[in-house]
């Protein structure tokens, strides 16, 4: 059974409809990516899953309907969202940012272990744990955003453009860590990326959005070989 099932998802910014009936599924343990040009509705899709904007449709997470739930409730079900622009709490320290990631958890004892676990993935954060998060570099803030979401012990990690504005070497190391996390923790991921070739390399399933609608979908392998996608999104 799919971990997240989305049927006929429509989303609205005020009176303007941004998504026009999207269907997709995320397999448990898999990495799914949503591709598309600017304004196609990628970020909107992620935001509507987490209830940050007004949406209609049927959303089922782990067998439970979430389309009427508030963001705060959806987080409690185990959806960790790494938002566009990283969403760092800039005036708080690195450690406080991570503490907030575990805000909803009741098992205080194992939260301590999780600090060590995420510092293991991102050792640079351990070095900077007392530092104000706003003083971190862009790459470090992206790592912090992922680490913060991991503190929730999520079942699904929603990632909005983790490569945005970062140097290629840093992007590569972050993507390697994401793969490692996916493999060792069995966390499913929903990834939105501008960098389509990178996303298709990491993901096992992909959806292509155009103006708020799914136009193509399939295994990442197949989409990578697709003539149209290759020309419009991979650029070769």
């Amino acid at each position, binding site marked *: 059974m799919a971990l997240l099932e989305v049927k006929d998802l429509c989303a609205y910014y005020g009176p303007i409809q941004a998504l026009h009936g999207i269907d997709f599924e995320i397999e448990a343990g898999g990495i799914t990516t949503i591709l598309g040009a600017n304004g196609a509705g990628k970020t909107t899709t992620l935001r509507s899953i987490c209830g940050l904007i007004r949406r209609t449709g049927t959303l089922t997470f782990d067998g439970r309907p979430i389309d009427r739930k508030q963001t705060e409730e959806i987080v409690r079900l185990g959806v960790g969202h790494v938002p566009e622009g990283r*969403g760092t709490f800039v005036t708080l320290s690195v450690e406080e940012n991570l503490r907030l*990631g575990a805000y909803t958890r009741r098992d205080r004892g194992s939260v301590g272990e999780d600090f060590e676990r995420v510092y293991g993935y991102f050792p640079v954060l351990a070095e900077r744990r007392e530092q104000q998060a706003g003083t971190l570099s862009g790459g470090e803030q992206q790592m912090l955003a992922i680490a913060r979401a991991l503190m929730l012990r999520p079942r699904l990690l929603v990632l909005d453009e983790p490569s945005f504005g970062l140097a290629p070497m840093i992007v590569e190391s972050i993507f390697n860590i994401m793969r490692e996390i996916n493999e060792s923790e069995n966390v499913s991921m929903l990834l939105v990326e501008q960098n389509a070739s990178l996303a298709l390399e990491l993901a096992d399933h992909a959806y292509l959005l155009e103006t708020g609608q799914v136009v193509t979908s399939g295994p990442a392998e197949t989409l990578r070989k697709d003539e149209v996608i290759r020309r419009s999104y991979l650029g070769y």
Partner: protein
Amino acid sequence: MELFVQQVLAGLAVGGIYASLALALVMIYQATELVNFAQGEMAMFSTYIAWQLVQSGIPFWAAFFLTIIISFAGGILIERLIIRPARNAPVLAIVIIFIGLLVILNSLAGWIWTYTNQIFPSPFPDRPYLGVNIQELGAIGVTLVVLLLVFAFFRYTTLGLAMRAAAQNPTSSRLVGIRVGWMLALGWGLAAAIGAVAGIMVAPKLQLDPNIMGSVLLYAFAGALVGGISSPGGAVLGGFAVGVIENLVGTYVPVVGSQLKLAVALVLIIGVLTVRPAGIFGRSVVHRV
């Protein structure tokens, strides 16, 4: 010299009250970027509740803590019933709500308790100790304890951390599961409780009437601005500074005396807004356009 020390201490005593109220203003400001003009009247109303409790025979400290709890609940209620429905309203509408709240609380207090001055009891004896009035020392002590408690709450508890997070980045806060709306309500409750302490501490000195907090709020506002309305620590220091400056200027500048003291606060407000609007410790937010 002795006069100087006395005036500084008296300034700190009243400054602590400004500092508390300034902190209450900053707490609301940080979450909403608006100055709650009704903060003073909320404190006045709380003080009347304390007075009423003491009048009905409840011991002072019991009344003190009871009033804090009632004020905390009242602050939450005001946020839930009056402020929250207007959360998407334009700034001016919310300012009007604050002013409306001010007028309503003021009139309600006058209606219930009349506009006659009431003697408010102080838990501390009104006599000097080593040349310093014990009432003033007590007021300084109580405000310091309150400020330390508030500091510890925000610094060391998860709830305090969540409140800071909610004020700083509401969207990210929701994404980690913080109920941002409730954090705002909690902020109102805390601000009301802190204001209640300020009111109870200032009332024995000024005598209680519905307009007691008008000028106090002005000084607190000056304190918050001097220290920086975006910085809780700065606002507290600013409050103390305004208390001391007010007293020293009133004592040593004959023209000012006790009649023109309030003008000192106004001069400070205008001065800060002209020279450094963000205050001494505040950060000015630069937006990219």
